[in-house]
């Protein structure tokens, strides 16, 4: 049962026939894990908190830097130097004190990923490096856990939702990570500050739809966004029989760290 305050807080949700009181209860019972409390993680965490997703996990070992504030809108000038997960939790609870926010002040690795995601219904990748992106894919596919991939670079973004077993995974598109130094990321290439707001908000939408069980997920199609040209495109993607993790003869049967995929930025840690 929703309290009077909850009915008021979520009234614009509750009047939607796709949500209603029942759907709002589903959101409150829902558990979403956000990996990365940066550019993508910021809008994701703010919107999921506002929407009333009852349990939200957030993982990141980084601390807030002045150069983050141009796009990582959950962090403020006063937060520079403090852990991103703690800064994020403070804002999420300020919006919605009823939530349970679990913080994981650590980098994800093969050693901890399965444990971190295991109690959550849906996982969101808001990370900035390929080792993490492949690790999240592998852990979610092996655990059969749906997740949203998001990536941004300069003025371009991409996102796809993976429903393991039912839809193509990240490795169906990109079987192996690029070698380190091959692809520019983060500080080396730059990013327009509004870009993670667009991609992250789509990722949060997917989590909410998944919890509600309404609509169509962004599966089997990679959504690409060009901010400069202001165009969205959908590229249809098929499940690959040769995918190393979800294909007919998988070669990846447990999570491993893709050490070669650590990028230049990781070396700065």
């Amino acid at each position, binding site marked *: 049962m929703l309290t009077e305050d909850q009915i008021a807080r979520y009234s614009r949700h509750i009047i939607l026939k796709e949500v209603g009181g029942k759907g709002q209860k589903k959101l409150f019972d829902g558990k979403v894990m956000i990996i990365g409390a940066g550019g993508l993680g910021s809008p994701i965490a703010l919107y999921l908190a506002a929407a009333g997703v009852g349990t939200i996990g957030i993982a*990141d070992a980084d601390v807030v830097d002045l150069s983050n504030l141009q796009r990582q809108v959950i962090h403020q000038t006063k937060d520079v130097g403090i852990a991103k997960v703690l800064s994020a939790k403070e804002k999420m609870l300020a919006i919605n004190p009823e939530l349970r926010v679990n913080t994981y002040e650590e980098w994800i690795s093969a050693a901890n990923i399965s444990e971190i995601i295991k109690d959550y219904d849906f996982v969101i990748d808001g990370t900035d490096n390929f080792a993490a992106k492949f690790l999240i894919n592998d852990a979610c596919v092996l655990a059969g856990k749906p997740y949203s991939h998001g990536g941004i670079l300069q003025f371009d973004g991409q996102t796809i939702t993976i429903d393991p077993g039912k839809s193509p995974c990240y490795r169906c598109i990109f079987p192996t990570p690029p070698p380190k130094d091959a692809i520019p990321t*983060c500080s080396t290439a730059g990013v327009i500050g509004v870009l993670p707001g667009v991609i992250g908000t789509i990722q949060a939408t997917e989590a909410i739809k998944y919890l509600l069980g309404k609509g169509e997920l962004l599966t089997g199609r990679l959504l690409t966004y060009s901010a400069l040209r202001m165009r969205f495109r959908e590229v249809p993607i098929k499940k690959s029989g040769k995918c190393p993790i979800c294909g007919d003869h998988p070669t990846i049967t447990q999570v491993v760290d893709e050490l070669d995929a650590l990028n230049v930025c990781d070396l700065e840690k």
Partner: protein
Amino acid sequence: MNLTVNGKGAIVEGKDSLDVNALLVELKVEQPDYVTVELNGDILERENFAQTLVKDGDTVEFLYFMGGGSR
């Protein structure tokens, strides 16, 4: 030949077909070693690029790694 490349029309002058490696060069695709190529809806394996011919009317998607997000 006329192709659709990442949703837009592209003309390759004076050729009826090209293998995928040659197409990457012809279209001056950046970082060709790391691009994923989808031809008419099927993602190609890199080792098949040299033997796979792209022909008039084909639809090609070049898909790029995007690693940003957090820091």
